[in-house]
């Protein structure tokens, strides 16, 4: 096999390579379609805008690059035997010419890539979703994709194909983000305007990703405008936001920030004393390309939530602050080592911290700190061996340290835990039958220092295109995970996640994915995808049911499975665009002989996302509708008086009323449904543009249930069920100014 690959690598045909970028700002265009007329041979750019077309016979060709929303660029090139012709292409924004077929990024992926269960959203598509509190949110958009479940209006956690949120690998330019939530889960810590695109791999992902059982969310930020200085500011009911970008010598920069202000104002308006809250996000990026073959990108991330509470009468009596957040820095180097060898090396430092400081007076203070620090050195190399083989290989070396520190007066307790997950992978994309049959076999090897575990993770993806617009996909893969969170599996709210390493004496949690699907292009901009999957979990570790906190040593072993089918109908362009996604899902866990459906086992889930650009008077109209069957919960079915003897009280018996719970997943909340709608209009001026928007969450005020609880009134014998609802009708307005 190696011999064949090497033989192919040293073939005598020529090749064409280069980058495709946006002419207006220099941003790379991922998954642009590049091809040679008249032979039709081509490639899609990678997520850095790089393309390579190998195995090109000597001759002259017309090189064309197209991308939806841009004018197609054509130029003549000559290809010589055994040489690589470099052609960097910039595309201008503009209307598509008559009779010209422009291939969208989705179509380019369909044609060239073996990416199964992958959905990519661009910034403009994030803006299709009506905003909560005036804020576009990445995770809210992801929750509307097939296979993704949201358990409440207040949580941005992602439950993907029966996996818990800690089974998702969340990356921001290579930085692992361990706690992607603000305001107890309502928002994610990414400034949406700074995001270039985001890809969700819901299962069966390639061998270059690892360390999580369920999915990968790969967020890529913009590189910054390398042509001119631009800026944008916005005000909404919840937050103020600003973003600036521009050129630097041989590169570009981008800075974005957001800070909330409403909660303080709201608390003051309602005379709530002794409570304060805000969060902020900062994101910065510097892109420097000293030569066409090398580029360096420095990315920084800072996000923090701060919650203060104190005794309004006497702040010295009680004064507490809880703050938590994410910080990270990454340095990425993109290299074209040879025309056929493209490499990326990333070094990243990521930190999630929390601190709870409470004082009951100057001399009486307690501090609880948790900290998770992650150092990563990752390398990915793509070797374009020939037109039919693309070999990827790399390493993923990490050191993660989890620490908890408690200080009370002069007493201090500290526990530190360090793990070294070290991985290497190799993968080949093999075009077995040109433009028809693709194989993507891969193998990932991981060594986890805790318990010195060796894990082999084979991966396989197959794509077969019997017809021009139809593809059948199959994927298989094994996945392991060395860390997990200690959050209660039933918690409705969680402020932040507490991560721990898998204890030394436990097996590594693992999952095997089996996926099969079909993609069918109905029109040039309409695609229908249908996928079915089965996931088999082993050696999961779960928190103890009904307990607020489970220490790592007391986690329960669990097995489980999930299976389901998903359908997505997506229209990417035109006067109406958006998607309809439907998911059918079963999820089961089994621990200590008990089988149950976890609280995110939603059987049916339907999302409709619609966008009507300039529907009337230049107004953009967006809407989303969600319909989902009820989530399971353990309900109360009865009660009794639990008595005990009180010899000190005249030999009486006393009692508590205790509730009798039904089986863990015996009940389901009512059907969930919600419609959000938004209007926005942009006015353009010489100096820039102004966009005003109005969004209404829960337009018809569906009274969705967050949770039930049982309570007994003072003079009432019978406990009654009461409910806490989700978001009511919530209109928000805002304005955005760009220059």
């Amino acid at each position, binding site marked *: 096999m190696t011999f064949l690959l090497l033989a192919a690598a040293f073939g005598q045909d020529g090749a064409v390579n280069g980058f495709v970028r946006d002419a207006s700002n220099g941003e790379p265009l991922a998954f642009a379609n590049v091809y040679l007329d008249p032979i039709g041979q081509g490639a899609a750019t990678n997520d850095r805008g790089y393309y390579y077309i190998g195995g090109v016979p000597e001759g002259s060709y017309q090189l064309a690059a197209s991308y939806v929303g841009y004018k197609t660029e054509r130029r003549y090139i000559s290809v010589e035997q055994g040489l690589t012709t470099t052609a960097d292409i910039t595309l201008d924004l503009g209307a598509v010419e008559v009779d010209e077929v422009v291939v969208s990024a989705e179509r380019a992926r369909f044609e060239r890539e073996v990416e199964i269960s992958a959905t990519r959203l661009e910034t403009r598509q994030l803006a299709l979703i009506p905003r909560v509190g005036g804020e576009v949110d990445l995770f809210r958009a992801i929750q509307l994709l097939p296979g993704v479940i949201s358990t409440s209006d207040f949580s941005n956690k992602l439950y993907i194909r029966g996996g818990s949120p800690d089974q998702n690998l969340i990356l921001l330019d290579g930085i692992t983000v361990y706690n992607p939530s603000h305001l107890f889960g309502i928002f994610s810590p990414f400034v949406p305007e700074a995001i270039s695109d985001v890809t969700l791999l819901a299962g069966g992902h390639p061998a270059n990703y690892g360390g999580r059982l369920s999915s990968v969310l790969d967020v890529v930020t913009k590189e910054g405008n390398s042509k001119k200085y631009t800026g944008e500011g916005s005000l909404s009911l919840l937050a103020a936001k600003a973003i600036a970008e521009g050129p630097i010598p041989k590169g570009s920069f981008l800075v974005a920030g957001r800070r909330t202000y409403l909660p303080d104002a709201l608390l003051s308006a309602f005379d709530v004393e002794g409570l304060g809250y805000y969060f902020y996000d900062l994101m910065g990026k510097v892109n420097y390309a000293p030569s066409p073959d090398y580029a360096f990108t420095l990315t920084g991330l800072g996000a923090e939530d701060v919650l203060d509470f104190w005794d309004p009468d006497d702040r010295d009596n009680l004064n507490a602050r809880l703050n938590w957040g994410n910080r990270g820095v990454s340095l990425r180097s993109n290299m074209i080592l040879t025309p056929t060898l493209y490499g990326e090396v990333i070094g990243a430092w990521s930190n999630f911290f929390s601190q709870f400081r409470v004082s009951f007076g100057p001399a009486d203070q307690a501090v609880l700190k948790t900290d998770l620090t992650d150092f990563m050195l990752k390398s990915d190399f793509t070797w374009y061996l020939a037109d039919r083989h693309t070999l990827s290989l790399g390493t993923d070396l990490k050191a993660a340290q989890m620490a908890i520190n408690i200080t009370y007066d002069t007493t201090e307790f500290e526990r530190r835990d360090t793990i070294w997950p070290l991985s290497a992978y190799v993968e080949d994309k093999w075009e077995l039958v040109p433009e028809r049959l693709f194989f993507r076999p891969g193998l990932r090897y991981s060594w986890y220092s805790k318990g010195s575990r060796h894990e082999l993770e084979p991966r396989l993806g197959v794509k077969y295109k019997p017809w021009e617009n139809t593809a059948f996909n199959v994927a298989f893969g094994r996945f392991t995970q060395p860390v997990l969170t200690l959050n209660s599996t039933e918690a409705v709210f969680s402020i932040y996640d507490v991560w721990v390493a898998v204890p030394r004496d436990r097996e590594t949690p693992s999952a095997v994915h089996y996926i099969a699907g079909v993609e069918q292009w109905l029109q040039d901009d309409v695609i229908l995808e249908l996928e079915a999957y089965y996931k088999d979990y082993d050696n999961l570790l779960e928190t103890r049911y*009904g307990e607020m906190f489970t220490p790592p040593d007391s986690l329960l072993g669990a097995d489980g499975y999930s299976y389901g089918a998903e359908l997505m109908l997506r229209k990417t362009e035109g006067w109406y665009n958006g998607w309809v996604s439907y998911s059918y899902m079963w999820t089961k866990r089994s621990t200590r002989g008990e089988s149950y459906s976890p609280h995110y086992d939603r*059987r*049916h889930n*339907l999302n409709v996302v619609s966008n009507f650009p300039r529907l009337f008077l230049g107004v953009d109209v967006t809407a989303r509708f969600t*319909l989902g*069957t*009820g989530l399971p919960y353990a*309900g*109360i*079915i*009865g*009660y*009794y*008086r*639990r*008595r*005990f*003897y*009180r*010899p*000190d*009280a*005249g*030999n*009486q*018996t*006393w*009692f*508590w*009323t*205790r*509730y*009798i719970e*039904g*089986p863990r997943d*015996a*009940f*389901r909340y*009512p*059907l969930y449904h919600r419609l959000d709608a938004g209007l926005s209009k942009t006015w353009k001026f010489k100096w820039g543009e102004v966009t005003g928007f109005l969004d209404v969450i829960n337009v018809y005020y569906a009274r969705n249930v967050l949770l039930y609880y*049982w309570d*007994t009134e*003072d003079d009432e*014998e*019978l*406990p009654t*069920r009461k409910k806490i609802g989700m978001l009511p009708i919530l209109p928000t307005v805002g304005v955005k100014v760009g220059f």
Partner: protein
Amino acid sequence: MTRFIPPAAVAASLLLTAFSACELTPAEMFEPELNVHCLLVAEHDTAAALVDRTYAIDDPYIVDFRGASVAVWTREDTWEFRELGNSWYKEYRFAPPVPHDTYGIRVTHPDFDTVAGSTIVPDTFSLLHPRPGDTIDQNDSLVWSRSRSCLGYYMSMEQATRRDTFFYTIVIPNESIPGWPYDSLTERVPLVFLQYREEGPCTLRLCALDQNYFDWMSGSGQGLGSVSNSMNAGITGGVGVFGAAVQREVAVYYRSDTSSSIQSRRKSDPLSGLIVKPPTSRRLPSGSEPVLSPCASPSATGRVSPGPALARR
């Protein structure tokens, strides 16, 4: 005539059917059971049991649950308890339980499964300190000889003052507790909780508990033992507990001025040199029910609400 059903209507119907959540009602899932509480106290010649039932979440509580038959037996005798009303069943001519004896219980009701269980009366013990009539303060400890066969103790303190009656209760396991000095012959618990009490007479009580009642008390969220959420202890066929205890008490005088009472403690407490960490207080419920004493008759029912850590009456 052929009827034509539009495919869209079929699809919509199927979708609506699929989305309609089917769920059982609480009543359909609930199976009522008898709820039994019976604690045999060594050396007492009256035994009592409270028998009612579990209720579906929508069912009102029946104060005067009737119709059960309660029988308790040992090797030689069987006693059929008399129904007094308000869920009470009693036997006034009960042979005082003897340590190490095994007792059985059977509760029947025509509408419910039979409840059965057994218990072993724990070993007797003695209070060593303080002595009756001693003057004590917060620096004193309650010291007793260990009951060899009990699982733990239920300690309580009662103080009647001008304003209220103060209770302090805690369940203490008989085994070694991490961080506590262990003595196989005696157990010592400091009376630090007395520090906020008014000066005056008070009574300290201690019950040695069998396995069943110790589990039951621990499961009620009290004490230092492991917390079990089990709905029954020592019985099958229903919820509740069948247990046994040995009880001791001592009447003392509590003095808030510590200097004088320390001397009193030193005179009467030969084990005063030990240093013991304070126990953790736990919450107590405040629902109360009729007096179980032989001379009292059942009357009031209690309120349903959790009580404060230090309950007041």
